[in-house]
């Protein structure tokens, strides 16, 4: 197996992003519900957020100069990896409480793992980011683990 991950790269495991706080509005829930083709009235009316709404709520709002030419915003939590072509990605989301309009939510993101595996067509780099979403009083709302594969 090749060894793409040196100690400097692996030292990024445990790195935390600056916490982000966002206010949940009925308007934004409604937009999300319409955009995703929801059918349940409480989502379309914005009374409650659909299960993946937090993906939109905590997507980085970046300025134009922060975008790459293909329109992507680079996650500042990530180091520069020796492989850059993104393959599959996945999410695992655990629910602790519902999200409703007026909630003030804070997301804490941590780069929790970086590892390498050999794939059929060469080495692959995996990384994992855990995002903990909580209310102002610290009540947990969502735990989300993102896994991405680079080749």
């Amino acid at each position: 197996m090749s060894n793409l991950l040196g100690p400097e790269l692996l030292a990024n495991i445990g790195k935390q992003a600056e916490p982000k706080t966002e206010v949940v509005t009925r308007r934004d829930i409604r937009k999300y519900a319409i955009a995703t083709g929801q059918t349940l009235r409480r989502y379309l009316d914005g009374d409650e957020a659909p299960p993946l709404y937090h993906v939109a709520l905590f997507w980085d709002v970046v300025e134009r100069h922060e975008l790459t030419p293909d329109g992507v915003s680079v996650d500042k939590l990530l180091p520069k990896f020796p492989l850059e072509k993104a393959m599959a990605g996945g999410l695992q989301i655990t629910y602790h409480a519902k999200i409703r309009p007026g909630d003030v939510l804070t997301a804490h993101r941590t780069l929790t793992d970086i590892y390498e595996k050999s794939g059929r067509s060469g080495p692959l780099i995996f990384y994992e980011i855990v995002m903990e979403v909580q209310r102002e009083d610290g009540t947990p709302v969502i735990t989300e683990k993102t896994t991405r594969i680079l080749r």
Partner: protein
Amino acid sequence: MNTPATAQVGDLLPARDHKCDNIQLFFYNAVLWNAHRIHFDLPYAREVEGYPGLVIAGPLMGDWLAQVVDQWIEGTRASLVQIEYSNRQAAYVGEVLTAGGEVTAVADGLIQVALFVKNEAGDVITPGSATIRVE
């Protein structure tokens, strides 16, 4: 139709076809603030990235999986505890994609379901699973 209260292994969750058009994909990426060109710039998607069409955003298909669960548990005393999915293969504007699921385990007040988004060729492009708690 089967319900969470009487769930048995092999029960199918109601499936739904999605045909994501340019407007839905635009709305979705707008609510995210996602400017990735492969989702709205057809010449770029084709000529620079080599895709056959505009690429449907991965987490949008993840949302469809959550909707399969939501439809099934609506009006019951069941709730979604955990969901996971992975985007394995791309899909494009204009394709008919089917989201559905099947009960794989029932024990201790928890139901496990396998979830999928399939394309017209029958390939599972976004597999997933969920844990549902029944009161």
